[in-house]
């Protein structure tokens, strides 16, 4: 079968304005949208530009707005997307070329929450720190984040104001805030309690819908809010 692919193209080096281009691509029902993009790039128009690597939903390179929703192009199959597929860049970030956006503000927000375990004490026996399966479970969900930016760029608060740290950064703060081994919880909660932190969330659940890993993002945000309350930082 053939699929009609509409792609929003924009190369600031050559174009004044973004514009739509259409491509007809042969496809099997089980093909990924990424396969279609590759078909265009490899055999029709090599200037089409996007990021990708693993092609099976674990590296987080290819978040795009496909048929009106943020998804990974390598996880969305033709049989689900239908014969007419529109693809554009994720929103709220500057488009640098076609489907490729400026990720630097995203990484900056990520770095801002101190996304690393802080604990320089090593058990006296030199072995691993103990952690119960129940304590380990508290960050199971948020440790699964692949930093694809699908959630943050689906968030209407973020669209309106990019100074909001965004759901992805909160998810990654949560991963350490609830880790029983970490010693920098308060510092992170302070960052989260900032006016551009967790309070900006309006629980529209767009992020949860967008997350390709099905992380319960809103729940993580609420847990961070609760921790801020417990710490008396509110």
């Amino acid at each position, binding site marked *: 079968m053939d699929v009609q692919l509409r792609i929003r193209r924009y190369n600031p080096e050559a174009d004044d304005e973004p514009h739509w281009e259409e491509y007809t691509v042969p496809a099997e029902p*089980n093909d990924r949208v990424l396969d279609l993009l590759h078909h265009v790039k490899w055999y029709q128009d090599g200037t089409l530009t996007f990021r990708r690597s693993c092609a099976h939903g674990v590296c987080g390179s290819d978040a795009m707005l496909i048929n009106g929703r943020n998804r990974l192009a390598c996880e969305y199959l033709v049989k689900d997307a239908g014969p007419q597929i529109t693809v554009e860049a994720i929103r709220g970030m500057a488009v*640098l070329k076609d489907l490729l956006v400026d990720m630097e503000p995203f990484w900056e927000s990520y770095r801002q929450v101190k996304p690393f375990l802080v604990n320089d004490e090593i058990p006296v026996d030199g072995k691993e720190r103990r952690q119960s399966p129940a304590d380990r479970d508290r*960050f199971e969900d948020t440790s699964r984040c692949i930093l694809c930016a699908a959630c943050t760029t689906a968030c209407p608060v973020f669209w309106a104001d990019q100074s909001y740290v965004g759901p992805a950064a909160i998810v990654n703060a949560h991963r350490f805030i609830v880790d029983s081994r970490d010693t920098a919880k308060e510092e992170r909660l302070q960052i989260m309690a900032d006016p551009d932190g967790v309070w900006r969330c309006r629980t529209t659940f767009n992020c949860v819908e967008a997350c390709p890993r099905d992380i319960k993002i809103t729940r993580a945000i609420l847990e961070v809010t609760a921790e801020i309350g417990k710490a008396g930082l509110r």
Partner: protein
Amino acid sequence: MTLVSGRSAIPPTRVHEMDAVVVGAGGAGLYAALELKQELGLEARIGVISKLYPSRSHTGAAQGGVCAALGNTEEDHWEWHWFDTVKGGDYLVDQDAAEVMCHDAVETIINLEHLGLPFDRTPDGLINQRRFGGHTRNYGEGPVRRSCFAADRTGHAILQTLFQQCIRHDVTFFDEYQVLDLALPQGSGGPVTGVIALETATTELHAFRAKAVLFATGGYGKIFKVTSNAHTLTGDGMAIPYRRGLPLEDMEFFQFHPTGMYRLGFLLSEAMRGEGGFLVNDRGERFMERYAPTMKDLASRDVISRSIYLEIAEGRGIGGKDYVHLDVRHLGADVLNTKLPDMSGFIRTYFGLEPLTDLVPIQPTAHYAMGGVPTDIDGRVLADATGAIVPGFYAAGEVACVSVHGANRLGTNSLLDILVFGRRAGKKMAAELADLSQPVADAGAEVSVQTRISGLLAGTDGERPAVIRSELQEVMFLKCGVYRTEQLLAECRDEVAGLRERAQHLLVDDKGCRYNTDLGEALELGFLLDCAEATVESALARTETRGGHAREDFPERDDANWLKHTFATRDPASGAMSMAYKPVTITEFQPKPRTY
């Protein structure tokens, strides 16, 4: 400076002075960078250069676990792990190197826990462990729980943890820079004094000058049609030294993982069999019971992949086709959803099948390069088969060949390899930095890279890189795959040579300087072709069957003649290939017939 299509130009080379640079931001590169920072202090100028954002590296795709004889759930000893590694590698493993890896494994895993890695835990709060292919108790008696894991996304957890700690230690990242050459101002003997890289965002060339350079760029699975490897795994870090006249070791050994998802190629973790899954043929038989009576579906990967091929060849593939089934239905919802959630998700997403009720179609998929850039146990790159060192040049991870995997890597030992040897390389670089010479430019290399890029951007006719790449992947999978013969390999060699010739005239559509990934892919094709050449040449040379190299015309292992590593070299001036040999280091375990 060359003008391109009237509106853009390649700007002149920009220069960065660093103390050390690491190329590649997977587990090996990040661990090395972290060690360098920890050893040298926060002021040290340590740069990590990567084609991708670090969190995109393929370490993140590793699933099942990383082995270390912690003995947390049952008795285990690192010496048993050592034996399993040597036997798994079909006795081509350098035993002194494997000893280091299995011994260091224990301390390294503990260090990762201290760095924050979210391992699954036992009820007592220790790191949990499970079974994995080829890992046994008491020198082969039966399976042992040795694999430390974070659900079925252990690689993701490792990559995230090391990236996070590099952020904490203020490592400098150069993201989306494609390294294209080494600075070797005095020729292939060294010293290496930096790298030359293309900034994807701008098509600017950057010269990084450094006293020490580590290659940790991963593998080259994209030479094959069906592979578990990411699109970006194009052998850059192997091809670059090879082009400069440095050797590649044991390139004939490529691991085909038995349980690739049919046609797609990416993996269903061995952990699915570790948890009790098994393979069945068209008749519903558990055929591994015939090929490996003791370890069955947890025999080593080369053994299982060859068994699947034999089943298919004898007409017992599913419906007579080129795949068999993985049966995990009996594992139950709890195991599938909590211990193997990502795998279960892949089956649902990509096949529309339900692992609780459906059989899963699988086929062997090109997975892992045992060979690569030869190094010693501290990551120092060897200039030749006699063991001479190239000063200032280090390699670790899949790009390197230490050799701890010999002819076939055991499951989980790839993660262990990147961790142990990435870390050791970082330590060694830090220790040697003071004695290495001040970096000087390699003007010849800078000009040659500049010329290559200008040529690609200027061309107005030629073939699309994707056409040549796809033909390469077909021929390599067909003629240099699980089973090989002299005739197939000779044909393959000629066809690869023809493709190399055709690749002299490539058409790159994108003539611009902004995120020109079309150009990037054309450059990667060149690397793939070089890796394919070295692989086929080495496969032709080795007239025996061992581990991941199965010759139908030489079906037996030949210890009398082949307990040695191949070193493939191409003379940069004449283009002539040559093969040299280095004896295997045998210290503890004498080669024995390998049964599972």
